[in-house]
């Protein structure tokens, strides 16, 4: 009887490479996050003190969902709209970079990333100047006579842009654009040019080539972009504060207020976990659909 081959032993070094990152995540992310669970089920001993006592108070979740459910839904809706608008802008841009960018590709990608190098807060404030009542964007809109139409479409409110949901969506879209463009470009880069040549050889016109070849093969990039933008958008605190009004507040603003102003840490923890639960569901759905292998993360 021939001796069975000795199973090949995998070297341990991949785990060693992973260890620092895993340790970082465990200590500075997972453990504090787990700490939110007992906090959300606790009650403060006093209004201004730090001590809380664990009472297994599940009712807090019902209270925050009842009180802040509409804000939560608004946050998800705003994030979805900003992501959708971002995809509409990012897809043609990524296509252009991939198929027409040629030797300028690195420069074009650099230009997409460039705004991210400035402070997030300063960018939001810059947008508030652009969108202000006497700012250049409204001047152009009114100069072109588009004010009435955009008011009718709900883009403007009372003839203004700043402190409306439109401004928040525009600010978010601007912030998210690099996270949408980069995975799309990576995804498009992976398309073998011979597939496009084959499609052309088979008499596919450009539209058919896009529909049958480019679009299906770029979908992993779309999915990755969706994950990378929808999740941070839902938890954004800066854009609604500087570009929105009181009717555009998002859930992160509420959490901040609960924690820093109302000093209701258990409620803030519960709302944070609800938000995390919802965004985690989006991630899980995506992973279940496509798996990690399909994600062309840059």
């Amino acid at each position, binding site marked *: 009887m021939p001796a069975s081959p000795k199973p090949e032993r995998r070297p341990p070094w991949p785990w060693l490479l992973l260890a620092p990152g895993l340790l970082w995540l465990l200590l500075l992310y997972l453990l504090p996050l787990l700490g939110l669970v007992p906090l959300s089920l606790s009650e403060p001993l006093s*209004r201004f003190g730090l001590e809380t006592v664990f009472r297994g108070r599940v009712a807090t979740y019902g209270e925050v969902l009842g009180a802040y459910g509409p804000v939560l839904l608004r946050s998800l809706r705003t994030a979805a709209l900003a992501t959708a608008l971002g995809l509409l802008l990012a897809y043609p841009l990524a296509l252009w970079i991939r198929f027409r960018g040629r030797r300028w590709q690195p420069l074009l990608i650099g230009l997409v990333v460039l705004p991210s190098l400035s402070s997030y*807060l300063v960018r939001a404030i810059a947008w508030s100047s652009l969108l202000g009542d006497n700012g250049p964007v409204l001047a152009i809109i009114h100069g072109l006579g588009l004010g009435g139409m955009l008011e009718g479409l709900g883009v403007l409110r009372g003839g203004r842009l700043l402190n409306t949901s439109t401004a928040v969506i525009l600010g978010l879209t601007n912030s998210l654009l690099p996270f949408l463009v980069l995975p799309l470009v990576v995804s498009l880069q992976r398309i073998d040019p011979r597939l496009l040549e084959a499609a052309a050889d088979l008499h596919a016109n450009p539209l058919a080539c896009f529909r049958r070849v480019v679009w299906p093969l770029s979908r992993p990039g779309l999915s990755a972009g969706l994950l990378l933008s929808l999740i941070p958008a839902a938890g954004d605190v800066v854009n609604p504060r500087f570009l929105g009004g*009181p009717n555009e507040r998002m859930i992160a603003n509420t959490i901040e207020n609960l924690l820093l102003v109302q000093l209701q840490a258990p409620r803030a923890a519960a709302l944070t976990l609800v938000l995390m639960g919802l965004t985690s569901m989006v991630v899980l759905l995506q992973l279940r659909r496509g798996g990690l292998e399909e994600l062309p993360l840059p």
Partner: protein
Amino acid sequence: MTRSRRQLLRQLGLGAGAAALAPLLLQACRPGRGPAAGGGGNTLVMSSFPLYIDGDAPGAPGSISRFRRETGIDLRYLEDINDARQFFARIRPQLAAGRPLRQDLVVLTSWMAQRLIALGWVDPLPLEQVPNQRNLSPSLREMPWDPKGRFTLPWQSGIAGIAYNIKATGRELSRVDDLFDPAFRGRVSALLEMRDTMGLLMLADGQDVSRPTWQAAQGAFQRLEKARRDGQIRRFTGNDYQNDLVTGNLVACIGWSGDVAQLAIDQPDLRFVVPDSGGMLWADLMLMPRGASHRREAAEWLNWVYEPREAARIAAAVQYISPVEGVRAILAADPATAALAASPLMFPDAAERRRLHVFGPLDEQEEARWEERFASITEA
């Protein structure tokens, strides 16, 4: 007011100012490190609201520089308090754990100072080393937040009222109701400082704000909520209403007297008025957080800013109500500042003072209830 302050407001806006202050904020968030937390033996660390002192100008050093030069004390003046409640949230973990802050002095609004005193998180001031405390205005002695005057000395007082741009409104405003004029829909803001916004609305309802009750506030809460829902109120703001007022995003708002007085130097169309129904009077106070180590240096500073000539310099810059007696005469004697001495917002007479009200105390439970209701409107 210094040129640099106006430029900062115009060019960057207060939000950008906040961004620039981020390193200071982070610095101030650092945990205390025992008795020498503030730095060396000759260092004094003080936290205050932004743009609340005279700055350096060419050939005319501001109060901080002159104090450093003349006393040899290394004053580190941090403009890191944008909102008293958020600052409280930042310092609470350390003070609750019995650890000192790095700050030796902090400027906080009276109701927040009262909270810290009640929690036992404030040390008595070294008043025996502050002979100039005798210059404290009699109207600010034995105040409810510190009846024996052991823990606080006022920094400045001010008035919350209506600020507006006469060119944009097309008419003078004089009533709180004017803020709810449909012609101004979406171009009006109110303050996130609950006591000022609610106080003005309650006064307009004919309620007594010196003894605020939940029942008496309901009309004001409902009116505010409706105005927010209808889009009448564009924003709830901190200091950042100034930028919106200057750039024309707002035509009218609830604002603070000194801010508007300063902005009006360059924008004469900006006005500030105490509404017919009355204005809200507030005071920002200097206090020593528990465990502050530089008591001698703090006493030097307190004595310095309570010297009338120094106080007059600060008052001329910030244009709030100085707590120091003798400031008015000094301003009146100088042609460059004589107009300020006649300002009813800086020196309200007895009749004007009768129109100003101080928001009364709320106990812990009531305050939590009010804060939650107010947040349900501002953070809905």
